[in-house]
């Protein structure tokens, strides 16, 4: 039954129905039905699922670059803070009770691993820097994730090519 409901809902969404109309048609409470549609990525009232996946094989190159820069910048801020405090990586690892090894900490400082918030806060505390202030500085330097740049979306790009092809045009702006 479920795939059929999803298919019908998808068809109705394409025809321009709102979630309220769909809920009435299905005889379900609106919130419950909206949750159901959202679980199947069919919520007509929300923005469609972005094409810039932030993990896995479908991560766009721009997002992957942004993530790499972000990891590097976080690592650099922590390393700079550590050096300003006159500490070496071993002292910081000891200060955070060796929840990660010295080698891992050094790799994090080089931006080779995505750092968890807990580890970030602990390292900030060990080197005596303000965690939110450090995070703000990193974001100011690297910028937000490039999720809204239409040039970076493979699906949108493909749609534009398709539209251009259907229109009989050979050039895409």
């Amino acid at each position, binding site marked *: 039954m479920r795939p059929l409901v999803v298919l019908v809902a998808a068809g109705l969404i394409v025809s321009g129905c709102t979630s309220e109309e769909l809920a009435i048609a299905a005889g379900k409470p609106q919130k419950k039905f909206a949750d159901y549609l*959202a679980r199947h990525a069919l919520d007509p009232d929300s923005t469609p699922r972005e094409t810039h996946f*932030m993990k896995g094989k479908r991560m766009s190159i721009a997002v992957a670059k942004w*993530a790499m820069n972000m990891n590097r910048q976080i690592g650099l801020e922590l390393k700079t803070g550590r050096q300003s405090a006159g500490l070496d990586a071993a002292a910081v690892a000891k200060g955070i009770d060796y*929840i990660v090894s010295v080698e891992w900490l050094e790799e994090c400082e080089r931006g080779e691993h995505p750092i*968890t*918030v807990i580890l970030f*806060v602990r390292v900030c505390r060990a080197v005596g820097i303000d965690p*939110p202030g450090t*995070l703000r500085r990193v974001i100011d330097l690297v910028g937000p994730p490039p999720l809204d740049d239409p040039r970076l979306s493979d699906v949108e790009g493909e749609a534009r090519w398709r539209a251009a092809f259907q229109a009989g045009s050979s050039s895409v702006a």
Partner: protein
Amino acid sequence: MMDTEDEETARAVARALGDELRRAREAGGWSRAQFVVRLPSGIGDRTLLAYEHGLRHLTILRLLELSEALGVYPQDVLGKALQRARIHLQNLVLLVDLRRLLRDGSYKFRPLSQWAKNRLNDVPNGIVELPPAAVRELAAFLGSTQQDLARYLAKFLPEPSDDDDQSYEVM
């Protein structure tokens, strides 16, 4: 290996962070299922639930992604979470609601009332940011330690309903 206190601190940070994310999501009027479809990483609502309950540790990148989708600043989410959990306060810029501070009748920190009244004249929304250096100076004036005063001031984090005006006065 972490000892019990460190594990408890890590759990408290994760819980406080999850709590802040949940507050922001609820303020936006989204259920978990509605919210996850907005996320570019395609995580499930159970993963979001684990983040919100502090059962799963967030990476900084995931915090940025969630904050971006929620329309809040990640540094604010982190700062409020740490202040609410009263963890690592010695390096934290504290957000203090002066009106809530004035309503508190602590005898130990009574001289702060006059300070709060004076500051309210300059700050219409009644919310100030106190950097660690300012807390240290106030603590010296009050004959208290920075840690004690920071723990006391951390109680007066502005409530979400008071956050509509996001401009804070830095001391």
